[in-house]
């Protein structure tokens, strides 16, 4: 249900609203104040941290209040490849996940519509990966594709792979892992949308002598667009900040680091908080631009 977070409308709600504002305030305030204290002010703290300057004492991890925009220039020049890689990996993985997930969502929502048991089983299988730590799943792929695994050996024997070829540590491995981890996030919102697809509209298409392909292109797909957009956002945003899959201990290698890996290293290892914060702020800004384009299109009530 939360996976339909984006792009769901609830038209019934206006009718049922009553007017007592004070009760509303009591119900809302604790949660909203919580988000203010632990979501909004941390974002401000992050922006402040991104502008700090090193303490004159020179102690590692000591920074003073400042307005050092040079931190951003440094972060961009130093980590341009990682920034570029994050967004291109996220873009490619999102497209592939969409291509893989759409037919699945379509099958569960439309073809299995009259078979509740099959549908229940398939939906359970879609969410099944959530029940086992994504770190364990990602590590399983690492072992399946490791250098002396039978897959790599078969590829070598057949001659597709040279003697010193490998999979782990390549861009392919990282994108593969990202796609795998986010297929459920793409499938569920599209399913939730197609589930409400009115089949009479599709029948009308074929009644008017449209081929199945034309009916899909002109009716089914356009109607499912809100689900596609939700799935795309729910996939693209987490991937752009992920650093587990691209980590060297998982599917990545020396040349696959993404923004998340750099933020992790700078913040938690070398304690260069300003650079880590500047990178995080830039990532957030890019996402805000992306999402506000969506909000402009559909309004705030559709957000939740």
């Amino acid at each position, binding site marked *: *249900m*939360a996976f339909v*977070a*984006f792009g*769901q409308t609830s038209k019934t709600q206006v009718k*049922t*609203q009553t*007017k007592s*504002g004070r*009760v509303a*305030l009591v119900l*809302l305030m*604790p*949660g*909203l104040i*919580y*988000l*203010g204290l632990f*979501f909004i*002010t*941390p974002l401000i*703290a*992050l922006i*402040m941290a991104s502008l700090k300057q090193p303490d004159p004492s020179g102690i590692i991890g000591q920074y003073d209040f400042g307005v050092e925009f040079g931190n951003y220039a440094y972060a961009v020049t130093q980590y341009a490849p990682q920034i570029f890689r994050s967004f291109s990996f996220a873009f490619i993985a999102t497209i592939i996940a969409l291509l*893989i997930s759409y*037919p699945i969502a379509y099958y569960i929502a439309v*073809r299995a519509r009259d078979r*509740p048991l099959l549908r*229940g089983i*398939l939906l*359970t*299988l879609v969410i*099944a*990966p*959530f*029940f*086992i*730590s994504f770190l*364990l799943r*990602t590590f*399983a792929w*690492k072992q*399946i594709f490791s250098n002396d695994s039978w897959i790599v050996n078969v590829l070598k024997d057949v001659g597709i792979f040279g003697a010193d070829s490998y999979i782990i540590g390549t861009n392919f491995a990282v994108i593969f892992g990202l796609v795998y981890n986010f297929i459920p996030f793409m499938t569920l919102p599209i399913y939730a949308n197609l589930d409400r697809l009115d089949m009479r509209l599709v029948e009308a298409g074929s009644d008017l002598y449209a081929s199945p392909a034309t009916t899909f292109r002109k009716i089914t797909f356009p109607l499912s667009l809100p689900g596609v957009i939700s799935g795309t*956002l729910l996939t693209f945003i987490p991937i752009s*900040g*992920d650093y587990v899959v691209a980590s060297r*201990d998982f599917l990545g290698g020396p040349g696959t680091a993404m*923004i*998340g890996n750099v*933020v*992790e290293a700078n*913040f938690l290892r070398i304690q260069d908080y300003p650079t880590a*914060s500047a990178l*995080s*702020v830039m*990532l*957030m800004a890019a996402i805000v631009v992306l999402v506000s384009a969506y909000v402009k299109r559909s309004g*705030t009530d559709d*957000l*939740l």
Partner: protein
Amino acid sequence: MTRFSLGRWLLPTYVVLTFAFLMIPIIYTFVFSFNDSVKSNIIWRGFTLDNWINVCDQQVVCTAFGNSLIIALSATTIATILGTMIAIALVRYRFKFRAATNLLLFLPLATPEVVMGAGLAAQFLDLGVAKGLTTVIIAHVMFTLSFVVVTVKARVATLDPALEEAGRDLYGNPFQVFRKVTLPLLLPGILAAAMLAFALSFDDFIITQFNSGSIETFPKFVYTAAARGIPAEANVIGSSVFLIAIAIVLIVQIRGSRKAKRLAN
């Protein structure tokens, strides 16, 4: 006719293959929980039940697992209460700053975890707060809250306000109406939200890594262990959590379909 039958088999075949693909790492993790491994758990060395019987031989794994449970239970409880209150307010009441509220609830869903994690860590650093169990729970309530709101809100929206009105007509005070009418009707939604919050919290790694200091959680343990090879005991814990969760989902689904059948008859 040939085109039709091709289309008929193409999609189901594709669905079966993709699901097989989705299951590969899960099955792999499960199978290797029975591996007679020595230190790292990479090569198959034979079947054993040892890892399952003596899970806590690797004490770190069990401590980490225990911490994850404590964190997930606490965060779920707080987030479910706060989130349910917000969901009721959003559907039932009219208030001025609705757009701003929607935006504030939506933003955490649209923020990459690394940004939320680093932001909260920067704030704790500024305030001089030592990281530990409490800071992780604070962080988990923050990022699961919006998921709870979305899930419960869907349920509140389907609730007929006439039922609560009937309660008031029968001289129930607002508290009684809430306890006897609203809450029982919302319960499936609240339970679904709590389960989701628990799953998200239990599996969270990125936000946790930034805000936990030296506290070990299960995902953190797996991440650190990955450099040298994850011990089979971690597979045991992962597999058992998986089996329990699947069992819960199946029970909920079977009960749901029975109920639907009863209503249909």
